Structure formats: C-alpha cells, structure tokens
C-alpha cells in the first residue's frame, strides 16, 4: 500500500492475503475435472470395462453426462448455477476442439489430457483471483481490496463495525486459517438464506380443469459477503481475530467514557451560558456608562 493512501496518524498493523487453501470450493471444481478426466481415460483405455466404451461416442456421452449431472448437483447444493454453466462450457469447448482437430476417433485419449489442461488453467485462475485479494488492517480502518479485472475496494472504520462474525471450517482448523466478516451499521456484510416451497394441484380430466398453486418462502439473514469485502481465509486466524476485535474495542465508547462526554457537554453548556451572561452584563455596564456620561 502506498504511503499516499494512508490517513493522518495512520499506522498499518497487518497486510493479509487469503490462505492458498481458503478457496478450496473453487479448487475442488478443478480437482473434480482432473479426477473425472483421468477416470474416464482409465475406463476407456485400461479398465476391465473398456469393451463397454468401445465406441467413441459412448466415451463422449458418458463424459458429458457425468460432467453435467455433477454440475447440476453442485449447483443445487451451493445454489450457484455458474458451476453448471462452467461444466457445460468445458463440455462444449471439448466437443468443439475435438471437432476442430478431428479427435473424435481418439476421444478416450483426448478427454483426459483436455481435462487436465482445463484444470491447470482453472487452478491458475483461482490462484490469480486469490492473489488479487489484499486486506490492510491499520489502526484506523480495514481496507479490503480485490478483483482481477475490475478492482473493488472497501474501507471500514472500526467505529462503524457493529458486529464481527468469524468462521473456521475443518480445513481452516487444520491449517489455521479462517474468515472474519465485519458487519457494518449499514448492514454491509449480511446476506440472505432463502428457501421456497411450492405445490400445484390440477383437477379435471377432459375439459374442465382447475389449477391451484400454493407456496411459501422463508428467509433468514446471515453473515455473508463477497470474498473481497471480508477477511477471507486469513492466517493465522486466531491472532488476526484478536487484533481486529481489540481495534474494534478500542474504537467503541465505554459507558464511563460516555458519562465523561455527557459531563463535558454539560460543562461546555454552563460555560456558554456564563459567557452569554457576562456578555449581557458587559453590554448592561456599557449602557449604564453611556447614560452616566450623557447625564454628566
């Protein structure tokens, strides 16, 4: 961080980046591509079941089917359709390249190499994305920076933090990293978990039909935000958490301090009243003097 970006009397406490394993969710998408690519290559070329994959179209069909089914399942679990579209893209690109280079006859050999290559690209993109994150903890504020192409930045002053949510998964517990979400007064750092259920009834067979739909939804507010608006997968988690909590605590007015502020305000009010009275008195004296001078 440049010195120009720092405020007056601002001192940097820590500059952090997410742990390499903190984006395991994204990395696991690439791991699956490698595993499935190698497995389909093994099934088509070396396994006892290789006769089942005798036709090249069968290999392509099996490859695409599993890829898309896993994509749908993962998308439903994580409620992110981008996983499905990502795998669909991988499948379509693969078909396109095979068509372009005429590798349909050797799909059993092409697919494993293609999948490994795509996974390596995937890993590199995830790593690039991880490295784009930068969290600067200073004595005045937390600066969150992120984004590969579009740069995002968030500045959060400690006195604006109302709540701190922190979480550590099993991998985080093993490797000592975790995520800290500072929630601001404006509610920045909060997301929603929504669930919806609906049902439909159709009555009647030939002409007269009644259609009824009924449903309901539930929502719960939960600490959730983008990885560049939170301290995502920071290491060492416990130490960072303590630093942030201490800094937030240092910027919160305690009841005693609040009493002092009220007392000081009262004092200032009294002093203002005294000043006004003195001014009045002076004016009165001046008027009296003027009258005396006129009379003499």
């Amino acid at each position: 961080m440049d010195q120009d970006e720092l405020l007056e009397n601002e001192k940097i406490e820590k500059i952090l980046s997410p742990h390499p394993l903190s984006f395991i969710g994204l990395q696991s998408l690439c791991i699956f591509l490698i595993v499935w690519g190698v497995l389909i290559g093994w099934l088509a070329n070396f396994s006892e079941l290789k006769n089942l994959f005798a036709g090249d179209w069968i290999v392509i069909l099996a490859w695409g089917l599993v890829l898309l089914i896993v994509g749908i399942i993962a998308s439903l679990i994580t409620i992110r359709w981008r996983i499905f579209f990502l795998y669909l893209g991988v499948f379509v690109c693969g078909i396109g390249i095979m068509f372009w280079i005429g590798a349909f006859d050797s799909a059993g050999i092409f697919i494993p190499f293609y999948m490994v290559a795509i996974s390596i690209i995937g890993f590199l993109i995830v790593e690039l994305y991880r490295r784009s994150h930068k969290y600067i903890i200073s004595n005045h504020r937390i600066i969150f920076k992120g984004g590969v192409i579009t740069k995002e930045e968030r500045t959060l002053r400690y006195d604006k933090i109302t709540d701190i949510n922190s979480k550590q998964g099993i991998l985080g517990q093993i490797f000592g990293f975790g995520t800290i979400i500072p929630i601001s007064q404006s509610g920045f750092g909060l997301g929603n978990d929504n669930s919806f259920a609906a049902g439909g009834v159709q009555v009647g067979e030939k002409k007269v039909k009644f259609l009824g739909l009924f449903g309901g939804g539930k929502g719960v507010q939960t600490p959730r935000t983008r990885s560049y608006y939170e301290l995502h997968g920071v290491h060492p988690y416990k130490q960072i958490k303590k630093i942030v909590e201490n800094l937030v605590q240092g910027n919160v007015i305690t009841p005693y301090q609040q009493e002092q502020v009220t007392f000081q305000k009262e004092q200032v009010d009294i002093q203002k009243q005294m000043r006004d009275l003195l001014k009045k008195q002076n004016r009165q004296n001046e008027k009296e003097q003027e009258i005396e001078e006129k009379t003499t």
Partner: protein
Amino acid sequence: MAGSPIDIIVFAPLAPIFGVILFWFIQLLFIENQKYLLTKIRDNHEPLCRFTNFLGILFQTICHALGYTVTKSGISSFYISVNYGKVAPKKEKKGVFEWISNAFLFIGPFFIPATLLLICLFFLMDKGFYIVSTTSYTFSENLTAFGINLYYFSEGFIGFLSNIDLLHPAHLGFFILLIFFGMGTRPSFIGEKKREKVDMLFDLKNIRYNILHRPLYIFILFLIAYVLSYISLLLNQNWYVALFSILGWLSIIAIISLIVSHMIIILIRLTDEIPGLWKFLPYITIPVSYLSMRTLFFIYPSSFSKWVSILVTIISTVLVVLLLLKYRTNKFKTKVGIKSLMKLGKGEKDGSR
C-alpha cells in the same frame, strides 16, 4: 471329538479371546509408537498432527454416537472439531446401557476404521477370506484354527498390498484410505495441548478399572462368549472361531495401516533434516519412480510388473533419502574421515617420538 470335556467346555472358548487380546495389544503398541513419532514432528508439521487428531476424534465421536444410538439413549448434541469432540445423550442411562455405550467409545475407534477397510477389501481382494473348519473344538484346535484364519488373511492382504496397482482408481483410493485410517485409528493427541488421559496406560487402567469395579459386566461378556461357543459346538459349526477371526482380521488391517503410516511419518521426519528444496526430492521420487517403472512394464509387459514397481519405488526413495542425508546434511559423515583421523593421530604420535 477327541478333546477332554474340561478342555472343550472350560478352556476352548478362551483360545480365540486370548488371540484377539494379543493382537489388540500389539495394535496398542503401534499406536503408542505412532504417537511418539508424531510428537517428534509436531513442531514442523502442526497441520498434519491436527489432521490426524481430527481423524481420530471423528472416529471416536462417531463410535460414541453409535453407542448412544444402540442403547437408545438418543443424541442431544453432536460436536466435532480438530481439537475436541463431544456427544451428549438425550437420556442418561445407567447400568448395562452405560457400559455398552462406554464400550463403543472405548473399543470402537480400534475397529471401526478397520471395519470400513475390511468392507473395501471384500471387493478388492480375491483371496484370504478363508475360515478353517474345526472337528474336536479343543483349546489347541481353536487356537490353531484362529491362527490359520489369520495367517491366510495376512497372506492374502500382504499379497494384495505388494501387488497393489496404484494406477487403478479403486486400489489407489483404498491405499489413501489405508493411510488415513492408519493415522486416525486412535487419537494421537486430543486438544492443542497433550493430554495424558488418552495414552495406552490410561486405556490399560480403564480396562483394569472395569475388571475390578464392574466384574458383573465382564462376567456377562464372557458368558455370552461361552454361550456362543457352546451353540457353535452343538451345531458343529465353527462360527465362534470365525467371529473372533474377523476381529483378528480387523486388528491385522489396523496394524498394517499403522505400519504404512509409520513409514510415512518416518519419511517426513527424515526429510525434515534435509535443508532447502532438496527435502522435496524424496516425495518427487515416489511418483516418478513408480510411473517410470509402470511405463517400462507397459512397453515390456511382465507378470511381476506391479510388485517390482512398488519395490523399486521403495528402494529408490530410501536410497534418495540416504544419499541426501549423507551429502546434504552432517549425518553419516565427519569433516575428516575417521580412518584418516586415525592415520593422522598415528603420524603425529610417530613424529613426536
């Protein structure tokens, strides 16, 4: 039936019990040794130790929950982390139920991981699941049958491991599970600080306590074993020995998985002494040597390709480690050779004379 009635009625049922206890004790010794090795690498490999902790706690907590489920106590809370696991029952049951749930907690972690591996082995191993039939049901015959069952299984399992095809997804998966379960057969440490209550002596004290203070339950356990023995005797079926043989197989699986995890921990410990990037060379040697050998045997097919590949992998890794220790560390060498130092000493002595 050639054996004496006293032998058949009183002593014969004890034979497989003693056998299982012996193997269980060996398993405990390996676990203790693994804990010792883990303490030696803990400073440099905290995440690995936390991972083994987690595996151990996971198995133990599952067993605890299983115990409460079997005894119908119910589970009110289930908590698991890297350092700590806790299962609380809905209803606190006393007596036999408490004893059974404690037994699950106590014995479960020794056998549950091995049971999972045994299930995998049923699908992967083509020989070894052999049960010897008995005719006279004496102590010696039961013990011999138990030993033979274990021998056949060990032979099959070691044969499978030495011929394991690491390019076969199922075999590779099994091998990874074997390593993981070996590391988590029993928690090495619970919590960030070492607790004495999870060592072997604590286990033995626990056994002693249960024997001395709860003799009725031990008596019931033996009674069940004896009843089972008599039933199999009356039906002229060797179910009794077969049942204990399965427990013996589980112990053998656990011991072998512990040996494999020992080898890995020793490799980690040795590579820690190698400075710089050289320490990664042994880890690179493992896949490189294995894949090279498999490629070689793919070009020149042979019936012994798998076990030779594994042997070459082990030998090349050991050689690389030894060479690195010799040339990259101060191990196995002195600045001046001992022989030349001796010659130098002799020369000085001669010169002074």
